[in-house]
């Protein structure tokens, strides 16, 4: 039981990390960035390349190396997010929503198969594993690796929350989410803030990609597809556009999946997650913490 809860929370913290990028971008420009899951994949591969360049890592140095790789990867994926927005989304900001969604699908496709052409179709084995023994806590087996990764995830999320609620930049983001045109009139550089939002979201997704690579030990070019869907589900459960809600949604989805797998069997895990998504959309489309939004005409 406590094992199920712990597993759920652990996987859920990954979901939350990826979902935040989805949610922030949706909150600020009402765009579903389908390529977000592929930024996660790009992060995993960037980390893989950096680790390859570093060479062998002694077990004692694994954690500092991981942190270093995380920083580099976050910079790379963050910049890719900015470039993606600049090329594919900004020119279409005032176009019909369908066009924007289609470019997002195109971007996702280009990233996946671009990576396939670059790195090959076969899964790669991640060269870095955090060793460490397991500890027993309330009957759950918890490895030190899981604790370390979870701490990183929590630190990143706490940092993001501080940034959005306490800084000038965060205030600008929230203002644009409410009303982009008035924000521009108030002297906020809307384009620049949207760019930086993409940077933050993509950096978090990249970090999650590296952490997933380290934890699962295997990466492939389609790994972002499913997690993109799961992240969106998390965002919807918590209330898309709402940052604490999204974190909550991620953890909740992790827990639901963990119990769902236990009851129904692992092969039904993904079906169960989407079932939850459809249920939530029919019963409470604004999510647990989301507010009802009236469409402006």
């Amino acid at each position, binding site marked *: 039981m406590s094992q199920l809860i712990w597993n759920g929370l652990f996987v859920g913290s990954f979901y939350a990390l990826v979902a935040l990028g989805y949610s922030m971008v949706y909150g600020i420009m009402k765009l579903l960035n389908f390529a977000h899951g592929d930024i996660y994949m790009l992060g995993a591969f960037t980390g893989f390349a950096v680790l390859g360049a570093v060479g062998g890592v002694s077990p004692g140095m694994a954690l500092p190396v991981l942190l270093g790789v995380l920083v580099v990867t976050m910079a790379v994926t963050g910049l890719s997010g900015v470039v993606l927005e600049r090329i594919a989304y900004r020119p279409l900001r005032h176009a019909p929503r369908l066009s924007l969604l289609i470019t997002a699908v195109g971007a996702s496709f280009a990233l996946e198969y671009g990576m396939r052409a670059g790195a090959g179709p076969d899964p790669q084995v991640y060269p870095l594993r955090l060793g460490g023994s397991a500890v027993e806590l309330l009957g759950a087996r918890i490895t030190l690796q899981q604790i370390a990764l979870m701490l990183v995830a929590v630190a990143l999320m706490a940092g993001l929350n501080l940034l959005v609620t306490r800084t000038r930049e965060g205030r600008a983001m929230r203002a644009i989410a409410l009303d982009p045109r008035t924000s521009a009139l108030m002297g906020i550089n809307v384009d620049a803030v949207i760019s930086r939002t993409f940077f933050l979201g993509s950096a978090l997704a990249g970090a999650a990609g590296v952490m997933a690579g380290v934890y699962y030990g295997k990466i492939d070019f389609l790994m972002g597809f499913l997690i993109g869907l799961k992240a969106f589900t998390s965002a919807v459960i918590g209330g898309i556009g709402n940052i604490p809600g999204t974190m909550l949604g991620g953890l909740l989805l992790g827990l639901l999946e963990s119990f769902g797998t236990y009851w129904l069997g692992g092969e039904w895990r993904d079906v169960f997650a989407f079932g939850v998504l459809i249920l939530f*959309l029919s019963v409470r489309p604004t999510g647990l913490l989301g507010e009802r939004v009236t469409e402006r005409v």
Partner: protein
Amino acid sequence: MTSTRSGTRGPVTALGRATSRLLEGKWALAGLAVALLAPFVIATPYAIFVMTSAAIFVMLASGLNIVVGFCGLLDLGYVAFFAVGAYTSGVLSTRFGLPLLATVPAVIVVTVIAGVVIGAPTLRLRSDYLAIVTLGFGEIIRITANNLDVTGGPAGIYGIPGLTGDPVVFYYLTVGIVSIAVIGASRLGRSRLGRAWRFVREDEDAAEAMGVHTYKIKLAAYIAGAVWGGLAGVLFAAQLSAISPGSFTFLRSALVLMAVVLGGLGSTPGVVVGAIVISLLPEVLRDFADYQYFAFGVLLIVFMLVRPQGLWPHRSREASS
């Protein structure tokens, strides 16, 4: 319908419309002639197979065009209906020994139900939600087919009876059915319902204000698309006589979407051409297989940026805005 309206608009536009319609008819005839004559040019079994697949793909694209092109709803899991159709007819014909043709009513019923189950909760929401829910739905269907015993699990179903023995006859049959489906979709797009679809696509709030029941209209488009996809699935099952979950991945949904966008959203001739290009291109560009899908993704972005109306845009018969 045309004659009463053209009377009020003066002879010049009526003449223009008549010629444009005649032209379109000419193109359709030319396309059909090419499709019918192709087996006389190359009749290797492989070529016939590729051409049959292309025809089925045209049917898929014309079905998705109803949803995305006419009504402006992005469906990213269109292959789900294709799978539902193929599996329904496959299961019924192999487990219960029904001839394939007898499964068609069941396929229609099941795809309509699937369309309602997915469409009813999501079509009330913003259109973006539909996109991602359909994406999830496509995966659900594939995973379910993979897990259930009745669908044969990962190995799928084999030994599905075909419609005819001879592949060339089957090709002609497919071309015939697909032509009817394409014309049907096009007529549907010009009907009263079709005008409502376009209105919803252009401005949903205005449509609602004008008394269009947007929810019902969108559901109708979604269900029509589902039935088209399901029937294409029956043809697919008949062609291959074996189906497995591996045939129904997101990749196929994305390719159908690409055909519709490339050809021109809402344009029937455009979508037919787009589907043929997308399905035959891999045969031509075999050496570039690694970069092909990458190029497709880039093309989607480029088209949306530079030419959102597609290669062969829909020419509206209503006054342009």
